């Protein structure tokens, strides 16, 4: 438990003013704050936690979505008559049955998104797997039987299935406005002048894959109309605020739709956009019956949104000593058939594409391109992770060209606090990249020996990835904290819990300030009707936002109750210690009040022992016309280092040793921080080595876990994850967000290890055995489509 000094300091620097460097509390939470695990983890190991699909009503209906299995077509007719006649079928919905058939969100935050996505396709199909019909029936079998009897007649239409095809002259337009959906540009200095005086120009094109989140819990939920006529959904979602969009779809007042978020069996950004919600809501509203909907894994792989494949063209001018003088970066991202969050993802890609390196002459451009493929949207790392492969690959190529070590090139160029980014904004916290790099290499130790007669190589990569939403969203999160009459604590916050301990961390944080232990705390989360809204769990924002909200509200509650305590104990505020469910005079535990006494006394004096308030993130303006302004509140830095063995006969890459180091500012729970890093590394290794959704002429062929290969325990080494507490960030107690950042460095670190082993830089992910073997045979990696073209 923290000392009083720590809390006093926290109060001197109110968090809502978001100081650039908050003064550190004297004693910090640096491990498990409480020896008592939060309830959700106990229930998970017991098998008793009710996920979205584990809960329901007797006699509820079962919903299914019927999807098109053509990538691009006009709908000539839909015949649902046979489906309607299946015994037990209660509703068969087409586009005409959806009151407002539009999933739309102004995702850019700057008022420049226009295109809407139908809930159910009306006139045309734009991607393989697009929903056409929704059915509810008394049994899952009846629903599936009906689904099989829906007759849709299509007229083939010409589609654009790759970014090259979509950008070609005369390409078929996915939407009337053309296939260039949005372009972001930022620039600083004079790039061409700087390129002119550079000693070397390093130019390369990189291609990253379309990948699936592959959380183990399928998209699922149950919906019903409650006794007040409120359409209520209990679903696996990262965002309860979708209740408003659902109300718009049903043309109901916002107060008549409620979303409850169950604990998720993983999300990773894939449950940030709506999944089952609009279909479930429409079926519930139509039938006025409770409905359950669970998507099959094969549907999830087929049609739920993926990570954007990026093609990145980097041109970097350097001096002989390795100093970067100019960066010219162009990114194309495949948005698939609908916008979803593509504008934001490509924004993140552009403004983070220069990495943790100083560059006073830089020009970055990113474009989201519509194609007739499955839409892409949020996925852990959100545009800022794809570019790590680009900028770190460039650093290694610079080292190779100049005869320097990869460490030397990075040392020459690391950003420091106060350096200006491509957007013209300064970096206002201390970056710990340098320390992370040295620690990672030190931890890796002696070079590994080959295990299978292959060649062993070593690689590392650094990253700087944002946490928190773009500042022009003026982000905020609310929280309610109160004491019950028996001194137990209740926290209400609209956060959703992905499994990373989002609920548990609120109990830890408020407990730090109010001295209430986790076993005496209940956290109510994720209910759009009953918990104060916090915004969803995405963008590595929840610890920063809701964590700071919990700090603020707990502190306000402590301030509110302090006069009562002082009166009861006859002492000054500065003498108080709040710990172990007591408020006592420092050094005199006998001289104390229990939380129960405090709560009852306060109430008797009409000082209600609860507070509801809102934390506001730092805000800033961004001008999309000039590409200048403020982007993200802060960044998390890190470095991963790896030894890998390449089997030159098969192209197989085996990872022998892996170290991941990040500056986490301050850990609220170091065990959970380490777990987040390890999990992100596993996902990053899958992205680097094996995962890729295969689409051929618009038709998705990776629709089974049997052919979409996420890492098993045999594909991964033990991951040595280290959270350093170097420089304070802007989260509670100086924490930095850790949910997304550790996924970035994996691919370039592995690519460098492969390069070290076989002398060839792989420019395309994933680095499958087939591609590595082809590169060994050809003496280079030729697999990037369109490589070398300036127009990437």
């Amino acid at each position, binding site marked *: 438990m923290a000392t009083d000094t720590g809390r006093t300091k926290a109060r001197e620097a109110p968090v809502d003013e978001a100081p650039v460097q908050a003064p550190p509390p004297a004693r910090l939470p640096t491990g498990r704050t409480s020896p008592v*695990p939060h309830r*959700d*983890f*106990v*229930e*998970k*190991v*017991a*098998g*008793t*936690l*009710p*996920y979205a*699909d*584990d*809960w329901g009503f007797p006699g509820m209906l079962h919903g299914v979505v019927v999807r098109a299995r053509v990538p691009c077509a006009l709908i000539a007719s839909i015949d649902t008559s046979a489906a309607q006649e299946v015994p037990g079928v209660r509703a068969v919905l087409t586009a005409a049955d959806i009151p407002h058939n539009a999933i739309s969100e102004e995702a850019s935050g700057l008022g420049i998104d226009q295109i809407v996505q139908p809930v159910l396709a009306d006139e045309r199909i734009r991607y393989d797997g697009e929903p056409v019909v929704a059915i509810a029936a008394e*049994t899952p*079998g*009846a629903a599936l*039987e009906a689904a099989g009897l829906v007759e849709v007649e299509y007229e083939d239409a010409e589609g654009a299935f790759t970014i090259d095809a979509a950008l070609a002259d005369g390409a078929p337009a996915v939407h009337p406005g053309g296939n260039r959906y949005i372009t972001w540009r930022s620039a600083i200095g004079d790039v061409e002048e700087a390129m002119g005086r550079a000693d070397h120009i390093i130019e390369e094109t990189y291609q990253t894959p379309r990948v699936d*989140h*592959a*959380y*183990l*819990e*399928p998209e699922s939920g149950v919906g019903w109309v409650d006794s007040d006529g409120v359409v209520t959904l209990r679903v696996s979602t990262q965002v309860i605020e979708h209740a408003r969009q659902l109300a718009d779809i049903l043309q109901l007042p916002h107060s008549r739709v409620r979303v409850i978020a169950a*604990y*998720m*069996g*993983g999300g*990773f950004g894939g449950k940030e956009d709506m999944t089952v919600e609009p279909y479930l809501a429409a079926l519930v509203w139509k039938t006025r019956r409770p409905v359950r909907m*669970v998507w*099959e*894994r*094969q549907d999830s792989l087929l049609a739920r949104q993926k990570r954007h494949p990026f093609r990145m063209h980097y041109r970097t001018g350097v001096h002989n000593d390795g100093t970067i003088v100019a960066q010219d970066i162009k990114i194309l991202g495949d948005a698939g058939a609908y916008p979803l969050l593509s504008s934001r993802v490509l924004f993140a890609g552009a403004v983070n594409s220069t990495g943790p390196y100083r560059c006073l002459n830089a020009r970055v451009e990113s474009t989201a391109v519509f194609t007739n493929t499955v839409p892409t949207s949020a996925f852990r790392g959100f545009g800022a992770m794809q570019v790590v492969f680009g900028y770190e690959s460039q650093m290694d190529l610079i080292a190779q060209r100049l005869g320097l070590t990869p460490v030397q090139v990075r040392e020459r160029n690391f950003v420091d606090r106060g350096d200006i980014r491509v957007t013209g904004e300064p970096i206002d916290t201390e970056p710990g990249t340098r320390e992370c790099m040295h620690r990672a290499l030190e931890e890796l130790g002696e070079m590994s020996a080959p295990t299978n007669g292959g060649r062993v190589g070593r690689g590392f990569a650094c990253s700087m990835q944002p946490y928190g939403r773009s500042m022009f969203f003026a982000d905020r999160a609310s929280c309610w904290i109160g004491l019950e009459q028996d001194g137990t604590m209740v926290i209400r916050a609209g956060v959703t819990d*992905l*499994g*990373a*301990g989002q609920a548990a961390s609120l109990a830890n944080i408020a407990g730090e300030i109010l001295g209430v232990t986790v076993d005496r705390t209940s956290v109510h989360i994720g209910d759009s009707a009953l918990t104060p809204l916090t915004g969803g769990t995405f963008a590595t924002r929840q610890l920063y936002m809701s964590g700071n909200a919990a700090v603020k509200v707990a502190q306000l509650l402590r301030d509110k109750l302090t006069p009562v305590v002082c009166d009861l104990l006859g002492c000054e505020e500065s003498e108080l210690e709040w710990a172990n469910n007591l408020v006592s005079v420092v050094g005199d535990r006998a001289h104390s009040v229990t939380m129960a006494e405090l709560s009852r006394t306060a109430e008797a004096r009409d000082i209600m022992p609860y507070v509801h308030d809102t934390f506001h993130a730092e805000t800033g303006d961004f001008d999309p016309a000039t590409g200048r302004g403020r982007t993200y509140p802060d960044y998390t830095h890190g470095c991963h280092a790896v030894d890998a063995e390449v089997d030159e006969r098969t192209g197989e890459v085996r990872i022998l040793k892996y170290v991941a180091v990040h500056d986490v500012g301050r850990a609220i729970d170091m*065990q*959970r921080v*380490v*777990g987040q890093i*390890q*999990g992100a*590394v*596993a*996902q990053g290794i899958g992205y680097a080595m094996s995962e890729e959704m295969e689409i051929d002429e618009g038709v998705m062929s990776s629709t*089974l*876990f*049997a052919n979409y290969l*996420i*890492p*098993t*325990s*045999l594909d*991964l080494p*033990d*991951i040595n*994850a280290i959270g350093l507490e170097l420089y304070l960030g802007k989260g509670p107690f100086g924490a930095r967000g850790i949910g997304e950042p550790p996924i970035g460095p994996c691919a370039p670190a592995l690519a460098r290890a492969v390069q070290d082993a076989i002398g060839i830089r792989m420019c395309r992910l994933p680095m499958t055995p087939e591609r590595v073997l082809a590169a060994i045979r050809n003496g280079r990696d030729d697999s990037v489509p369109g490589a070398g073209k300036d127009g990437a």
Partner: protein
Amino acid sequence: MSATAAHTINVTINGRRTELRVSPNLSLLELLRTEAGGPEVKLGCGEGVCGTCTVLLDGEPVNSCLMFAVQADGCGITTVRGLAADGELHDLQQAFLDHAGSQCGFCTPGMLLTAKWYLDRHPDADREELRRAIAGNLCRCTGYTKILDSIEAYRDLPQDADGD
């Protein structure tokens, strides 16, 4: 759905013997999740790849999504709830709790059962053997490191007299 006659089967689920009427096309997974009231058995992929739906059938791990309920007639089935006794977590569950072997928790029931099965037969298994043992249970959150830490911590506990 075709109307085919239901079969009567006898199964012992977590030590409790039950007679159930099941349709011939019902999967063991669906039987456990619905009629037998065991939502702790999770559906991950329905194609026998992810191992999420693992249960022990007469002590051996099976993908319950790939079995018909009628095939379990006469068998004993252990789900993760069968590990805990009298509301007390099994030591293996406690080890997962202590070592953060569970994040989102969705793979945890299957993972626990596979680990329990393997260690019962190979009480001295080393880390690499354990890594192979759980290769059929996918986890997307942890990277497996803390799962292996948890299983090893349980393996290294002093053996109690009850042996289970």
